[in-house]
């Protein structure tokens, strides 16, 4: 706990001094407000918009698969003592999940929509 606090303090001091050196060397304090880069043109609209994510299906598959990790870590700690029963149970769980991933691949979930 104390090590974390000291690290945070050290990092904050480092960041602050870096900014100070930057301000001193560049002889200016405030950043200059410019247009986002668009090959010399004025952007026609704000870039921040409803960005069409082409991989949304993959994110759903990831969220479901990721829950398995919740059980994987505690299982890893005890699998040596519990023997083959635990191994079979976990890898049956993983096998059907990988089958679902194969199905999702054929549906085109990992392709750009």
């Amino acid at each position: 706990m104390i090590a974390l606090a000291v690290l945070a303090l050290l990092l904050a001091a480092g960041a602050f001094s870096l900014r100070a050196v930057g301000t001193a060397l560049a002889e200016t304090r405030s950043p200059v407000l410019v247009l986002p880069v668009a090959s010399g043109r004025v952007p026609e609209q704000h870039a921040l918009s409803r960005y069409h994510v082409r991989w949304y299906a993959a994110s759903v598959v990831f969220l479901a698969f990721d829950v398995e990790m919740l059980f994987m870590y505690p299982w890893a700690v005890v699998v040596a003592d519990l023997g083959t029963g635990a191994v079979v149970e976990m890898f049956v769980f993983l096998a059907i999940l990988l089958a679902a991933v194969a199905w999702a691949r054929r549906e085109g979930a990992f392709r750009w929509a």
Partner: protein
Amino acid sequence: MTVETVLLVASALLSIGLYGALSQQVVVMVMMGLELMIAGVLLALGGLWWFLSPDPSGQVLLLVVLAAMTVEMATGFAIATLLHRRTGTDMTDMAAELHE
């Protein structure tokens, strides 16, 4: 840090989540409210586990709550995408008429 204070904080989180879930119009924001409520439940369960009966089965229940939250999010996103594709918008009141 006593069981009362932990449950107080948990109920605060839960009520903020309830406010969000009830007041927001967009499906995704309602999900944010739901998640905040589940966070409150998670904190309450953690507190009860630590202060009352710290046996492993309580921890398993917490894992199940986390799994349930992730499943809720995944299906929520899928439904939000479906709604958006069907009706071009995802306002909760307009989502009521799925048939048209």
